């Protein structure tokens, strides 16, 4: 009997592992269940899951809910703010339990669309609000001619350089890969303790490195028809170049583990001379108490290609929870309220992002000159092909290729393998 009891105890303890594979718990703050149309008090309820962009996001949404409820007392709005670490777990758990949120603010949408869980954008956003969006941004959420999500904000990437280090090492800001290599050589010779070039090939954001090098070598994730071209010669050349930079000792010592935030800290502290980073770096550097003399320039390119900035865009989408007309109206009201020009500008500025609406861009460009050039950049940059359902696999796949290449793997063979896997 004792043995039996001991074994059953062991069994129950091991279940921690088995349970781990299922739905991880999500922290919900009273998110309402499915749809409870016209609850006892006759209110229409909407629940939103929103991504936490930084320290200010939660407070911003709390104020938003207060303002919204004050103006629309007939709508019961609940907003759950989830960190980027948890949001996918929370959303997937809710979906598996038939409890999808009404509105979701996240980066990707294709998987939900592929499962027929979403409503077309034009069904849940008023025409007036829909027309505010940059068309190029809306196109990023196009599947088979229908737009399934609307952009909430964007960020763009550029080259950041430490002007003092470049001056001391007597090098100009590089515009091509050859110039970049030469600049790295000169900086290394000038001070061997400084990392001339910052590279992030981590699980966090290694796909961005893939984008920076391949796009600026005339390659990329997909061709003009949207077919995957992961193993193109241009891509192989680009990744080999990036990995060679690491092997030559021109970069941070551990690109597979140094995240962008580690690099930003090292850049702020004057330990990294140049890195590709988002438009929010100035805010990050100021918040971190760093005082580095830096400049911003286009990302260096190869083979006469025009410099391409990498854009990152997040979205709002609406799950098809079989809404009544009143509920759909409430959702439209929510978006009209969110995208009101002044409120929307506050949203974008809150964590130092870029606007996704034309009017928002105009307002911010007027307010801040440095913002104006970023608004231009974001209007013309390339985006990840997140509208394709294979994106998750491609994203993890290219990160794996980079890390395998760092460990000595053959880039061509690795990319061929990935391309075949994705094509299957």
């Amino acid at each position, binding site marked *: 009997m004792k043995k039996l009891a001991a074994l059953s105890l062991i069994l129950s303890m091991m279940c921690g592992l088995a349970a781990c594979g299922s739905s991880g718990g999500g922290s919900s703050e009273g998110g309402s269940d499915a749809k409870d149309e016209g609850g006892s008090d006759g209110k229409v309820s909407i629940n939103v899951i929103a991504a936490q962009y930084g320290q200010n996001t939660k407070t911003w949404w709390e104020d938003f809910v207060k303002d919204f409820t004050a103006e629309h007392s007939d709508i019961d709005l609940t907003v759950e703010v989830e960190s980027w670490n948890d949001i996918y777990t929370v959303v997937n758990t809710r979906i598996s339990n038939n409890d999808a949120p009404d509105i979701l603010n996240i980066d990707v949408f294709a998987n939900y669309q592929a499962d027929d869980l979403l409503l077309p954008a034009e069904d849940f956003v008023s025409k007036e609000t829909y027309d505010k969006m940059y068309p190029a941004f809306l196109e990023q959420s196009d599947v088979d001619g229908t737009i399934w999500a609307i952009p909430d904000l964007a960020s763009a990437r550029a080259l950041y350089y430490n002007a003092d280090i470049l001056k001391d090492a007597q090098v100009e800001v590089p515009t091509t890969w050859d110039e970049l290599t030469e600049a790295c050589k000169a900086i290394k010779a000038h001070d061997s303790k400084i990392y001339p070039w910052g590279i992030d090939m981590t699980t966090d954001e290694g796909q961005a490195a893939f984008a920076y090098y391949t796009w600026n070598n005339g390659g990329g994730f997909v061709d003009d028809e949207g077919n995957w071209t992961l193993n193109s010669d241009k891509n192989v050349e680009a990744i080999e170049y990036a990995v060679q930079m690491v092997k030559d000792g021109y970069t941070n010592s551990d690109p*597979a583990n140094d995240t962008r935030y580690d690099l930003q800290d090292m850049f702020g502290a004057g330990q990294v001379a140049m890195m590709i980073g988002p438009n929010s770096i100035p805010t990050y550097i100021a918040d971190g108490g760093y005082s580095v003399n830096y400049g911003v320039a286009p990302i260096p390119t190869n083979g006469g290609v025009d410099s391409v900035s990498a854009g990152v865009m997040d979205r709002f989408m609406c799950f098809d929870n079989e809404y009544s007309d009143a509920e759909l109206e409430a959702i439209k009201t929510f978006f009209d309220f969110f995208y009101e020009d002044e409120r929307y500008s506050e949203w974008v500025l809150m964590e130092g992002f870029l606007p996704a609406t034309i009017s928002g861009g105009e307002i911010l460009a007027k307010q801040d000159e440095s913002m104006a050039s970023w608004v231009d950049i974001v209007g013309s940059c390339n985006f990840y092909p997140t509208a394709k359902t294979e994106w998750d696999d491609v994203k993890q796949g290219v990160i794996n290729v980079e890390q395998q290449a760092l460990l000595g793997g053959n880039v061509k063979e690795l990319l061929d393998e990935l391309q075949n896997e994705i094509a299957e």
Partner: protein
Amino acid sequence: MKNKTFRKAEPYIWILPSIILMAVFILIPIIFVFRMSLSEVSKAGIIRGFSGFANFTKVMNSSAFKLVLRNTIVWTVAVVVLSTVLGFILALILNNEFRGRKIARAVMVFPWATTLVIQASAWKFIIDTDYGTLNTLLLRLGLIDQGINWTPTAEAYFTWEIACGIFVTIPFVTFCVLSGLQSIDTTYYEAATVDGANYWQQLFQITMPLVRSSLTVSTVLNIIYVFNSFPIIWTITKGDPANHTDTLVTYLYKLAFYNGKQGQAAAVSVIGFTILLICASVYMVYTLRKGDE
């Protein structure tokens, strides 16, 4: 009569709440995982139908899985064995009378009482090449001129993670063994001393057999905890580079929430569950039988 029936049922009534809790929070999720591992699951997490063992074959055919399985075995064996040996030695030391014994015992609790994520972050901060405190200390002491890269390879990272795992596991072993040591009657040692037994004879003939049950408990629990441990590896390397520091748990997390392959993640989970079930059952049955003898 009524009283008799109640007395018979009483124990079951008392354990009923825990049985209900276990069923709701343990049994049902397990059934879900098993079902998911045998199903085709969409990336958004919706079950599309029965797929047999397709998830298992896909997982087992992937090159990463073999590496991850090997890592998991190395990780579990290294952490459990080394922390058990070191924890046992430490318990023997702490069982002696010496000045400051209470303080030493209190200090021992710290690594155990601190959250694993905090522990792992602290270790990461110590060994970092660029801003790590270990390099800073050595530089300040003038022992080195330039920061040393403590983690030049994936294997080096994994070794640090194992070291961190051992560090946080030792206190648990120490306290389990210590409680066993304190229950040993000192007259055994007195008798052995009179009979002329030396320290090692006493250790192997008296101490070891009498603390065996405590060691069994700590070892079995540690095998389970360490095998399932997620925070240390996730905080320090996230399994990078290219799965070289992944264990089954971090690997299945990535499969489920980074790659959207929840069916395959469930399959990995079931495989891990089976391995643990076999190991723990064999160990338990073996040691309990030996105890009965």
